[in-house]
């Protein structure tokens, strides 16, 4: 079944025909070419596909594309839309919180969504917040540091 949906993606209005059973993750990547959001497990376990839906972090693989109708979606491509790196991105670069980079988009979006809700988190809170974002390369230490650092600037 095809549905025509109208939603906002990275502050731009988009109208699209999507199939009922396609996830938002697939539609973003395959129909809109927004490949910054990654496929890691498609089971809601790894967080590599974390995007913001109305400002809240969700796994894009756990949302049917059709559900995005009327909603506001934000992906990693939106962070440096102005041309400048977002404070979170700057912090990740400065802290060397990136190795293979595959978990990075999901981490950034999770952090952005979380900091909007809790602008002054403790280290423990940050660790709790990203517990659904798996990283195999970094051991998380730099990622947590980067988020705490960026929080000061974002707040």
């Amino acid at each position: 079944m095809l549905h025509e949906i109208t939603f906002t993606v990275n502050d731009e209005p988009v109208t699209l025909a999507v199939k009922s059973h396609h996830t938002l993750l697939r539609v973003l990547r395959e129909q809109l070419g927004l490949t910054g959001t990654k496929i890691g497990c498609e089971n809601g376990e790894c967080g590599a596909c974390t995007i913001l839906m109305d400002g809240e972090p969700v796994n894009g693989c756990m949302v049917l594309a059709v559900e995005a109708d009327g909603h506001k979606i934000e992906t990693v491509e939106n962070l440096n839309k102005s041309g400048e790196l977002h404070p979170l991105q700057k912090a990740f670069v400065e802290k060397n919180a990136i190795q293979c980079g595959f978990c990075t988009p999901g981490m950034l979006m999770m952090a952005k969504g979380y900091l909007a809700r809790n602008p002054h988190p403790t280290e423990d809170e940050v660790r709790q917040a990203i517990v659904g974002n798996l990283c195999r390369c970094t051991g998380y230490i730099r990622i947590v540091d980067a988020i705490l650092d960026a929080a000061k600037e974002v707040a």
Partner: protein
Amino acid sequence: MQPFDYYKPKDFEEAFHLMNMPGKTVYPYAGGTDFIPMSRDGFWKCDAVVDVKALPGLREIKETPDGLFVGAAIRMNEIANSDLVKSHWDVLAQGAGSVGSEQIRNRATLGGNLCTASPCADTPPALYVLNATVIIRNAQGERKVAIADFFKWVRQTAVQNGDIVVGVVIPRPAAGAFGSYVKLSRRKGSDLSLVSVAALTFPNGKAANWRLALGAVAPTPIRTPAAEAILEESSDEAHIELAAKSAADTSKPISDVRASETYRKLMVANMTKRAVRMTLSRREKGG
């Protein structure tokens, strides 16, 4: 994932019409966090889903004369972060807050947690100790099912074809009630429980009433009346030990890929102790 159709009705009449389409398997759909994985793996096959999120009342969370009403499409994070829920039904907030990750909790719903009826679900034990009632509606009307009657077996509930779970009503516990939800899992976050315990205590005159519910150690969540009775005699250390042993005896865990029956039984005892002690500690601090 194999294809299915999607509908989002605005009212119950439309919903029931869709749920009862002849010759079609139709699933109610809310958060998708169980439906999408199960459908992807081929365990759940359907012709269509009916998204219940736009149905009136399902996205409400409010206090009523009968108690707290939590709509079936209310999400785990909304429950965990709700001052209203935390005010008198905090053990439910704890249970909801222990589900998965932030991303999952921003989507997973109470209704889904109930209807999937995984034995290790995190909201049912809290709902058990709070004596919640599940409200189910279908084309014929509405009915109420006590939480203790809602779960029939592993992944089997009182929900029939054509039913939509509307929400739960949870009576307000007596003043001075405190509760804890303890979840033992393999990893510190975003993991299914191996054993979980919900404990609730509230004053009853000079004495205290206790309710204990166990998750992940039987085909459905279970209360432990014998253990509760022991704690109602006294909640000193000796009685806590006895209650823990009794709870373990009541449990019927299995061995599976996550843990063995032996370990689970041992952990029922230890986690019961932990839940009771945590509850006593909260009571002492005044919450």
